[in-house]
């Protein structure tokens, strides 16, 4: 298993765990959707896997330090760097403090940008790129990290169609390379397309293959009172989820 957690409990404040006993295991070459409402624990789980958030109990197994792709609004638009500079940050972790970033890593950064379809924008200032392009640059940064495990926080929300197509194609390639992807999303349709899904809502709701896992009951438990639209067969197909968490 590339990523596994057993009975992971912990969270932001003592006495109020955001993660209430999460257990799952994702094999090499598998993509798992991490599904849940805002505040349901998706980002908290990622932070625990990254070692940023000490968990109270439970165990985590990881095949190496995961690469993390944040939501685009974590990255500052006014920061004076090019797309290439950002991709190159993926090499920081393996560059000793007294060395320059290696030439091989500069080439990796170029290759990673080419892989996300931005070879011609390598020298563009990060802040001038579109939202979808910025997301792809952040993915290129994770590619340069060359980790067996990638954690992606809502990489497809608010992204233009060409970027989304490119990102989904890349996910397939990374799968074929035997990497493991955990993709936080609130889009149930997307989650159905991938081999595994983990439903979180202040604790584990369900984990497994989407066909068996994404039942109406599970989606209700995941999204609580948020709207569940049923198709003719009585199966939940869409969860309308307001991105900013306003009351409906």
């Amino acid at each position: 298993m590339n990523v596994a957690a057993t009975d992971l409990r912990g969270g932001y404040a003592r006495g109020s765990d955001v993660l209430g006993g999460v257990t799952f295991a994702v094999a090499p070459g598998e993509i798992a959707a991490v599904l849940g409402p805002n505040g349901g624990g998706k980002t908290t789980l990622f932070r625990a896997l990254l070692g940023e958030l000490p968990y109270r109990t439970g165990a985590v197994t990881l095949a190496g330090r995961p690469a993390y792709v944040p939501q685009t609004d974590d990255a500052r638009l006014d920061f004076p760097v090019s797309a290439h500079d950002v991709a190159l940050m993926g090499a920081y972790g393996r560059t000793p403090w007294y060395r320059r970033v290696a030439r091989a890593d500069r080439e990796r950064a170029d290759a990673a940008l080419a892989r996300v379809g931005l070879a011609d924008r390598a020298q563009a200032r990060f802040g001038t790129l579109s939202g979808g392009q910025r997301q792809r640059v952040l993915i290129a940064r994770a590619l340069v990290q060359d980790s067996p495990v990638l954690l992606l926080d809502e990489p497809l929300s608010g992204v233009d169609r060409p970027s989304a197509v490119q990102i989904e194609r890349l996910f397939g390639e990374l799968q074929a390379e035997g990497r493991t992807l955990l993709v936080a999303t609130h889009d149930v349709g997307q989650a159905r397309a991938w081999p595994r899904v983990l439903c979180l809502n202040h604790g584990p709701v369900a984990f497994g293959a989407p066909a068996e896992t994404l039942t109406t009951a599970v989606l209700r438990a995941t999204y609580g009172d948020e709207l569940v639209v049923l198709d003719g067969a009585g199966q939940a197909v869409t969860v309308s989820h307001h991105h900013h968490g306003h009351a409906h």
Partner: protein
Amino acid sequence: MLSSGIMQRAFLEAIVLGLACGPLGVWILLLRRAYAAESLSHAMLPGLVIAALAGIPLLLGAAGGVLVAAAGIALVARDARAGGDIGVAVVVSGLFGLGGILALSPDTPPRLGELLFGDLLGLTNGDLLAAAALALGVLAALAVAYRPLAATAFARHSARSLGVRPARTDLALLVLLALTTVAAVQGLGNLLLVALILAPAATALNLATRLPAILALAAALAALAGVAGLVVSYQLDIAAGASVALAAVIVASFGLLKPKLDMA
């Protein structure tokens, strides 16, 4: 103008300080620490006054003052009712007031002006050497910290996954700020040194588009402001530290007139 040792030392000090203050200021602005920069320099006033009273080197007084201020800010910030900015404001105003009381007491040698506004023309070789050593140390540390600073300032919440510790990076920047403040206080003064840290940096951020160019430009502009300020002060016979601060702000104003270019 350059024939006297006094002016030679003043020019060297202004250039050396500029080279360190410019790039430091860029990081201070990128990590949004301008308020801390302003505050730390003001909060060391009691340390300076006590050093002047006791007749010990100002550098030591400045160092002690900064340490007390940092400890005070950390202590107050721990109280959830106060929090970061309020803690800084309370501690800094308190310390600056204490410095004022000490400085205006009848026993104090009449050097308050010198402490507040600096004395570029009163430097000894030893003063210059100490400031240069500190400034060069700060420059070297900034070069080493380039990658952690960039990763933290660009996308703080994902910096950890790149092997960077944002909290540690913040702390390192504040330590470098404190060292620079200590190095610059004798020449530029407690009230004015912030101008040389922030103004050239703001200009460089507006004029150049890539980080290495911005850092180099900020160093050059700060050194230029130092030299220009000294020349003006010599010609017009006005206070040196104030002229340097004004020159830095004038350079910044010109830079800010230019609309921002994007390297699309």
